[in-house]
């Protein structure tokens, strides 16, 4: 951090000249990229609609209020379905993620050359396809309904849980395993008494965390027909019944805040 001498006094600057120049260059390039990208987007935008959007928004808000509160009672079943999609989906996802995680962790994998890359590929491809796209595919296969949603959420959860879990397995304390080994335990016993207790806290917090995310995701898989509150949302938007839409949105906020609260409670209890 240089001190710059002026004629009659000294001032302090955070960076020297070279670093200043570098920073300036970074900002310049960043702004250039940003304006280039924005230019491309704006060339595809009909600005009239954008500038008119505040009127449209006011109009929409006017139609949304007052919410049709009676409608809430028809929503109970879809909300229950959403909850089930998230919970059962998370359960299935974590159950499949456990063996995958053991296969892809460096220290537990039976074969580094063949099984590990395969398991890693499963994890990555599950992660890179969004649950809505999974649902889009599954609705065509198993038909619209809750089951498609459950499978979509489950498939998407595999990657997330598998990745975090195998990282947790790679970080375990080897000494404890050696201690179990020294008692003459076989492979399965080492697994249950040496590895499992060490990753159990991580496992619980990962699955609870994923459950929280899945509640959010379960609200949208219905948009493509895979069950839950999303189906209602899609139907009411299609009907332009905005007073009902606002009830659905409120229900989603409540469900998400509720799940976040539960998650925080459980995580506190574990840690």
């Amino acid at each position, binding site marked *: 951090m240089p001190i710059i001498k002026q004629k009659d006094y000294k001032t302090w600057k955070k960076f020297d000249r070279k670093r200043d120049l570098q920073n300036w260059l970074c900002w310049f390039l*960043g702004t250039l990229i940003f304006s280039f990208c924005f230019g491309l987007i704006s060339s595809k935008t009909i600005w009239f609609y954008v500038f008119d959007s505040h009127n449209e928004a006011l109009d929409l808000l006017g139609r949304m209020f007052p919410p049709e509160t009676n409608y809430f009672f028809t929503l109970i079943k879809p909300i229950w379905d959403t909850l089930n999609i998230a919970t059962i989906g998370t359960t299935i996802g974590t159950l499949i993620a456990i063996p995958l995680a053991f296969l892809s962790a460096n220290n537990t994998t039976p074969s580094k050359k063949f099984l590990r890359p395969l398991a890693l590929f499963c994890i990555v491809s599950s992660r890179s396809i969004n649950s809505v796209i999974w649902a889009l595919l599954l609705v*065509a296969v198993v038909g619209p309904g809750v089951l498609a949603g459950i499978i979509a959420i489950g498939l998407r959860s595999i990657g997330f849980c598998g990745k975090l879990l195998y990282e947790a397995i790679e970080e375990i304390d080897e000494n404890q395993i050696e201690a179990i080994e020294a008692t003459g335990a076989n492979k399965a016993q080492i697994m249950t008494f040496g590895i499992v207790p060490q990753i*159990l806290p991580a496992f619980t917090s990962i699955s609870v965390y994923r459950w929280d995310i899945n509640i959010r995701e379960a609200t949208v898989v219905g948009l493509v027909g895979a069950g839950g509150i999303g189906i209602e949302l899609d139907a009411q938007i299609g009907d332009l019944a905005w007073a009902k839409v606002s009830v659905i949105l409120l229900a989603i906020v409540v469900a998400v805040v509720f799940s976040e609260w539960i998650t925080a409670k459980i995580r506190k209890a574990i840690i």
Partner: protein
Amino acid sequence: MNDKKVIWKRKPLIKNRLLRIGLILIISTYLLSVFLTTEIDWQRILEGIPRGKNFIFAFFPPDFITRSDEILAGVFESLWMTIVATIVGILISIPVSLGAAKNIAPKFVYFLSRGVITLSRSFQEVILAIFFVKLMGFGPFAGMVTLSLSTIGFFAKLLSEDIEDINKSQAEAIKSTGSSWFQWVNYGVQPQVMPRFIGLSLYRLDINFRESAVIGIVGGGGIGSTLNTAFDRYEFETAAAVLIVIISIVMIVEYTSSHLRKLIK
């Protein structure tokens, strides 16, 4: 104990016996009620299996060539959208995350910022996109606004947690020099959260690209639109190609961003 063999048993996970049995009961009743209330149409699934098979076979071989122009245009549109949305989202998130840090903001601002974060986190990108497409018309602009707004919830939440964990004495040292509030944030707080800031930005760039593939389905532009068009035209070979393109780009982006994050650490 004298004549019996002494056997060691693993301690149960939950010590309280009542709680243990209660939990098992609750979980099993829950599972039972789920099975009773969800309608699963086995007939439809049995019918769906051959249909699904046809459906999956229709994806092969992936056809990159027929619609290659549209695929390329979609990918690039997604990329522009992602870059602009991430930058705009982060710029908005900075004041929000300062407001959502307990140790910096006054109570009123704190609750306001937390409210903004919760609201932005509650709604999935797709739901937001439906509304913005309605408000602003089809195209990448609506998608960009959606992504920027959902960036706030993620970015501001995690950054504000990091701001709350800063080393207080460093920040106080800056304050004791008589700095103004902005100088205090710039020299006392910002250097401490910078590594996390860069890491989060890269991570969010990666997430935004993934999400841009979905919001196109509801009209938000980008590669998702290409995917949706392919589905609507029953050109499953093209859809397969788009999916493969999405997966490979996501893999590349994720690999580079995790590599970069490791470098920064």
